């Protein structure tokens, strides 16, 4: 059989994987599938952050090799969601200084496990990915730490995992976080799309 692919979201202290098929992967201020609970808030001043989300690609099936896993969005997250990128709002993704930008999440597959459970004040504000003390341990001490996900387009996708994999696998994970500022707009947001691509040999 040809390959079967699914995007998973990791939750909890151990990073339990939950398929995003059939549900909506919302940004919120809790660690877990939120439904409509604990939505992102607009701060009176400063910046509020969603709890960061950790997603990966899982592929099973018959193949010789899978490699070159990239992600990109359908662009315009900040504009379509009224996040006010000019004042610091936006959707951000964690990046490494060199090599794959993805987060190793499996010692056997990736050599290490750098998954970190999202945290913060439930219902209000998550820890910023790049916060030097309680940000994401895999990114907070790096030089760049994060980039605006709107820059990750179909023409310039973000490399998550160069692989290669020769058997069923979970890829390295990408970490996304929504930032809101006082001038961000309230209310339900229009649906947006994240796309994962890979080469199969």
């Amino acid at each position, binding site marked *: 059989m040809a390959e079967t692919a699914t995007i998973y979201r990791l939750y909890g202290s151990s990073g339990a994987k939950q398929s995003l098929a059939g549900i909506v992967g919302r940004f919120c201020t809790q660690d877990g599938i939120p439904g409509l609970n604990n939505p992102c808030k607009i701060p009176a001043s400063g910046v509020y952050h969603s709890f960061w989300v950790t997603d990966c690609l899982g592929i099973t099936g018959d193949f010789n090799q899978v490699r070159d896993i990239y992600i990109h969005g359908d662009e315009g997250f900040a504009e379509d969601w009224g996040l006010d990128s000019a004042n610091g709002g936006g959707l951000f993704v964690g990046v490494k200084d060199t090599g794959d930008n993805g987060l190793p999440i499996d010692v056997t597959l990736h050599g290490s496990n750098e998954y970190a459970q999202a945290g913060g004040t439930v219902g209000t504000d998550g820890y910023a990915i790049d916060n030097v003390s309680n940000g994401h341990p895999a990114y907070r001490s790096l030089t760049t730490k994060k980039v605006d996900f709107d820059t990750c387009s179909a023409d310039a996708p973000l490399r998550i995992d160069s692989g290669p994999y020769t058997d069923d696998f979970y890829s390295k994970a990408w970490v996304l976080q929504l930032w809101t500022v006082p001038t961000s707009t*309230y209310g339900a947001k229009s649906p947006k799309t994240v796309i994962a691509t890979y080469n199969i*040999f």
Partner: protein
Amino acid sequence: MAQPTFRRFWIRILPDGSALPQFDPETGKYCGFESYPGQVAQIIFMAITPSLAEKIQANGDRAEPSQLPTLTFDILPGTKADFHRAGSLRLEPMHVCGFCEAEFAPELDTCPRCLAKNRWYCGACDALVENPIIDQKARQVRCPVCEATIPRGLRGIRRIGDFAEEKHFTHYVLTIGGERHIILDYKRR
């Protein structure tokens, strides 16, 4: 769990004239990987026929018949050729109707099959409200009729749900002597 839907398949012709197809034409079994270590003389891309699509689906893969044109690529002896398939998995937001279970585009507020939509109900007026006051700062939805007397919140009646549908697209990338060819598995409109 998303699988690619194949609308065309490849046949690899070896220098001795033998053929290695991506799907066995007799059984529909997926038997070919995109990479092949030996020399190849020709790669042919052919549309999936209705009978082959049935056989492929019987083996657990996804295929649909198409009328995509046949493409033939000759690989001269000694020419370096690389071949792989690219997969693209999209999480596409969708609406689902709570009445008739129709799935439809998120741009629509109303179910195109049964015309159901999310509504607001005012207990004081005992009526559905078409144009409620949405106060985002106060996080309230209020009745415009009651607003002049005693402002009253509305009850949401949710009939349209959200979910993400996995959509899987695939295409082939064939590089012959440094020249790159993208072979789509669908027809661009």
